[in-house]
């Protein structure tokens, strides 16, 4: 069996390296075939460790399958295929190879059966994703990629310190459920949360991702944050802290997206919002909640990629990214409009879309546990998702005003990728049983009950009413909203500049004092040893004889008295 010895993640990484050398049809063939082969391997593999051994004295299981890891590996392979199809006409020679290394290492991370392997793939993801942003080659994207890398290396250091502490304390590298009972486990949690886009460092995500190319951000939206959801699901299910972290992320995403003008930054904030739903579910920790978090990660990857494909198509066709410059594009981009709107309905968890069958499980779990405040917050957030992404994105990009732009639809491969993911959004919303069968716990949950559908429609449609009634307050302006990244983009450079100024000022005054001191010493030396000074003067012979006589007399006195 090929699935016993072939690693689907490494296969995609190898394909990425090969893509760097290929062109034309061969490039397209490898880009499309590698994710499909990986998908087949993941589905065909039996449960359990396929690879195991020992390395540097550690027991490692670099390739291990169970229901949870298989679910994430499946969606990552599907995402790599859809993203690859969409990016086939990308001119950059670096982006697609980097994206495949990134996607492959994400698959490797979720199939890692031990913490050592997990860490290796975790860092490889950071490198691949940084290169995706870097490949754009402009000044702003280069600087954004360095900030992105700095944050992820920080997360990697936290994670490594935690893993080292965990292995030292337990002697085991196994990746299993952990309690927050030691500094090492707190460090591991912190490392995971950095990648999830959790507070206080959420700002890396809307800062960096929108600087990627029209196709690059489609890849970036899927892997880093969802790998973090996976490791939280495996490592920290039922950790109550995560409920509050998740709810904070949910509302942070909504509020910042409401104020945002850049269409892809709106969608970036909404990634934080959606991951917040998953993190909340992980914090609730019941089988229903964990199933919901896992299912929501699965559906979210598809509809967020679809939304970013439609935004990418607009960027590709118009080279514009601000809502203030866009509007009225439905006239000449009907397919992109329809696909973007399907993605928007799915992220809003409209009935008959994939978001409905996944997010409902998290709310249901909060209800089952009688967590009234959590449940109310999730209901408000559900309405808020429709507000900030479900209507706001399609409205300002495709409708709103007539911007006068008449861009054409994107090329065929981009249209096909959008159609594929739009079909998945609706297909999973109607035929949800195959998805439920992949979930970590068996479930008999039925999302489509009369009361549930009606309440959901009420929440969403009246959210829509609020949007149009309050539209004047939502008018876009040429502004950004400050975030925690201000501390390292503005405050830290300003402090460095202030230190620099202080050093220069102190240095200048010390220099002046030194010069002054040197002048005084020079003057004193000059006064004694200068041409006409005491020690350099030409003395008369008589004077010398007198002084010699006086010295000898003094000598006699000292000897004989």
């Amino acid at each position, binding site marked *: 069996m090929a699935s016993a010895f072939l690693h689907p993640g490494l296969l995609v990484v190898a394909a990425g390296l090969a893509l760097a050398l290929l062109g034309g049809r061969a490039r397209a063939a490898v880009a499309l075939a590698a994710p499909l082969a990986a998908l087949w391997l993941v589905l065909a593999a039996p449960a359990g460790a396929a690879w195991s051994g020992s390395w540097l004295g550690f027991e490692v299981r670099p390739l291990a399958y169970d229901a949870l890891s298989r679910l994430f590996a499946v969606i990552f392979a599907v995402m790599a295929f859809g993203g690859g199809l969409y990016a086939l006409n990308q001119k950059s020679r670096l982006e697609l190879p980097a994206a495949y290394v990134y996607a492959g290492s994400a698959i490797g991370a979720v199939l890692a059966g031990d913490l050592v392997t997990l860490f290796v793939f975790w860092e490889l993801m950071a490198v691949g994703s940084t290169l995706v942003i870097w490949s754009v080659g402009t000044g702003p994207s280069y600087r954004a990629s360095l900030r992105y890398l700095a944050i992820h290396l920080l997360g990697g250091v936290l994670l490594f310190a935690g893993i080292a502490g965990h292995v030292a304390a337990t002697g085991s590298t196994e990746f299993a459920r952990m309690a927050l009972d030691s500094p090492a486990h707190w460090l591991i949690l912190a490392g995971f949360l950095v990648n999830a886009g959790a507070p206080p460092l959420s700002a890396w995500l809307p800062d960096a991702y929108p600087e990627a190319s029209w196709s690059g951000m489609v890849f970036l939206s899927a892997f880093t944050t969802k790998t973090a959801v996976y490791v939280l699901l495996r490592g920290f299910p039922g950790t109550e802290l995560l409920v509050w972290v998740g709810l904070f992320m949910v509302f942070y995403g909504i509020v910042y997206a409401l104020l945002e003008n850049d269409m892809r930054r709106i969608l970036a904030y909404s990634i934080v919002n959606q991951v917040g739903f998953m993190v909340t579910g992980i914090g609730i920790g019941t089988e229903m909640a964990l199933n919901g978090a896992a299912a929501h990660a699965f559906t979210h990857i598809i509809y967020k990629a679809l939304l970013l494909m439609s935004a990418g198509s607009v960027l590709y066709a118009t080279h514009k990214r601000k809502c203030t410059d866009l509007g009225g594009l439905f006239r000449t981009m009907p397919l992109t409009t329809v696909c973007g709107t399907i993605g928007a309905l799915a992220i809003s968890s409209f009935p008959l879309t994939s978001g409905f069958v996944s997010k409902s499980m998290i709310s249901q779990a909060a209800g089952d546990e009688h967590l009234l405040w959590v449940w109310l917050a999730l209901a408000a957030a559900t309405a808020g998702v429709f*507000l900030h992404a479900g209507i706001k994105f399609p409205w300002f990009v495709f409708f709103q005003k*007539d911007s006068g732009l008449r861009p054409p639809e994107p090329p065929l491969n981009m249209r096909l990728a959008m159609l594929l993911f739009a079909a998945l959004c609706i297909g999973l919303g109607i035929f949800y049983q195959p998805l439920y069968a992949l979930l970590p716990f068996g479930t008999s949950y039925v999302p489509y009950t009369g*009361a549930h559908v009606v309440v959901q429609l009420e929440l969403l449609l009246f*959210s829509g009413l609020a949007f149009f009634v309050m539209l004047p307050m939502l008018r876009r302006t040429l*502004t950004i*909203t400050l975030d925690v990244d201000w501390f390292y983009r503005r405050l830290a450079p300003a402090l460095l500049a202030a230190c620099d100024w202080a050093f220069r000022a102190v240095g200048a005054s010390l220099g002046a004092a030194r010069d002054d001191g040197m002048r005084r010493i020079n003057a004193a030396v000059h006064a004694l040893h200068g041409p006409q000074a005491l020690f350099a003067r030409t003395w008369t012979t008589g004077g010398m004889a007198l002084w010699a006589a006086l010295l000898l007399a003094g000598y006699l006195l000292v000897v004989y008295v």
Partner: protein
Amino acid sequence: MRDHWLARPETIRLLWRVFIAVLVLTVAAEFLVAHHPHFRIESVAGFGAWYGFLACAGMILFAKGLALFLKRPDTYYEKGERDG
């Protein structure tokens, strides 16, 4: 040349009427389905409708309030980072 049919004022008026009719029908549909509320507040008539509307209005107002302190021109970071 006339604008796209979707952008004409009469279409937009019609869409508003349909939208309001759908809103009314959604709330009316509550009386046709069986409820299994987890919480007492869920049983209040039109819960999803008023809660959804008020939650959104609240979030918009909160966002506008936050913007008073944190809003900056979108060229804010461009200065000073240009040489970096």
